[in-house]
């Protein structure tokens, strides 16, 4: 009986949280188009999120391309299909692995950062102080951050994909003697609009999901340092989960329009 009550409570909490988050998202869209626009803060957030994630994205992308090529090479060699490597790697990375891995990295880096920052501002009454001074904290803190991640994530993914392909080209060059020019010629031959366009569009949604969850968790943080920790932690968990859900939906929608 106690178990079923706990399960019922958890289910209720889960759906209530989804409802609250939907309300939070609808408020974001309402506030997004109302004046005043916080351009300066938006640019500051774009710079912070883009610049501070740069190193992580470059390193992750490079290792991803490198390892993926190294691991795939022996299998392709067995069938004498090493020449397919550039197209296989580029399609996998651009369509799926690059966006998802970079989004997950950013969910950890940016999502937890937003959750902790806003959570700490909530606990120390900085958000209340902002409101009392006649500034709309939702517009200043939430709208700018969600928008910044939504705009920056596609750029980070494009950078990550490019570095991953460079890593892959390096392995091919060292192991198979394939020149960089030949490698990238094959990459561009195999990539079509229907590969790049949907993959880029879905990264906007990944960014929105990460920003939404991070700000929601931080803005509604419970009191105390435990609350800040929980906000930061659950921002990463929920954002990562949402990235996979958005990806799942994106693949279905892409299939309808582009028949992958």
């Amino acid at each position, binding site marked *: 009986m106690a178990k079923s009550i706990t399960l019922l409570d958890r289910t209720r909490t889960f759906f209530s949280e989804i409802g609250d988050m939907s309300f939070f998202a609808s408020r974001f869209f309402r506030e997004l188009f109302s004046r005043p626009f916080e351009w300066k803060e938006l640019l500051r957030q774009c710079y912070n999120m883009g610049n501070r994630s740069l190193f992580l994205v470059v390193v992750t992308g490079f290792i991803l391309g490198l390892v993926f090529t190294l691991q795939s090479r022996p299998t392709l060699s067995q069938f004498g299909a090493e020449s397919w490597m550039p197209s296989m790697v580029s399609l996998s990375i651009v369509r799926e692995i690059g966006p998802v891995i970079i989004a997950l990295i950013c969910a950890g880096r940016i999502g937890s950062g937003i959750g902790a920052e806003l959570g*700490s501002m909530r606990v120390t*009454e900085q958000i*209340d102080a*902002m409101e*009392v*001074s*006649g*500034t709309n904290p939702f517009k200043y803190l939430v709208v700018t951050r969600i928008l910044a991640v939504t705009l920056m994530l596609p750029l980070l993914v494009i950078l990550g994909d490019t570095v991953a392909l460079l890593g892959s080209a390096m392995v091919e060059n060292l192991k198979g003697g394939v020149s960089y020019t030949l490698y990238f010629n094959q990459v561009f031959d195999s990539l079509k609009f229907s590969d790049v366009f949907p993959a880029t569009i879905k990264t906007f949604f990944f960014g929105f999901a990460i920003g939404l969850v991070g700000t929601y968790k931080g803005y509604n943080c419970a009191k105390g340092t435990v609350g800040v920790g929980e906000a930061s932690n659950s921002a990463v968990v929920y954002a990562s989960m949402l990235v996979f859900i958005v990806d799942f939906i994106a693949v279905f929608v892409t299939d309808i329009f582009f028949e992958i």
Partner: protein
Amino acid sequence: MNPDKNKNPVLELKDIKKSFGDNHVLNGFNMALYEGENLVIMGKSGSGKSVMVKCIVGLIQPDSGSITIRDRDIITMGQTELDFLRTEIGFLFQGSALYDSMTVRENLEFPLRRHKDKVENFKGTEESVKEALKSVGLLDSIDLMPSELSGGMQRRVALARALILKPKIIMYDEPTTGLDPITSNEIIQLMRNVQKEYNTSSLIITHDVDCARVISNRIILLVDGINYAEGTFEELSNSSDPQTRAFFKN
């Protein structure tokens, strides 16, 4: 300075009720703050003092009752009007609530950036920031981060930020809590100076008896969500009611 009670109050609360679930925090609280007055609200921890003051600035919505600031009802007010009215109120938070990612200068510039057109005799952002910091004696700390300041200094900077829009009413939420006796006295003196210099009406939430003694024109005791007793420091500290007297034992 004794308040002129014949005038309209600058701030008035009537029959304010607020509950959080089964916890009835305010059960019909009434008060009026008059121009130039220092009104102290005293009560035990958890008696609803901070909830009451947050209802006044619109951070918490009361369940019922009315709150009027200069004859304008804030409960029925729209967001834009409320934001405008908030520029007439300075609020000193219990934990200072300085923006920790900004310097002292940026903390003070923040409210000015949006509302400098509402400041009487505005002398420019830089001049206003320096004037507010000078009035709390911290001009030298203008480029420091909040984390580089002591608790007392943070409280002073928070006071300077509350003063920067030249508000008509200042609310202090536990202004001396967590400070040593010497720093507490400095903050209390600063509050008195600010009241003289800026001619503000002040609402001070505290359970610090020394603070209440030095600064109050009038005291209201908040017990069980209602105004249990009201009077000057002398009247209440010499009251025949043991529960009232208990608040004034150090």
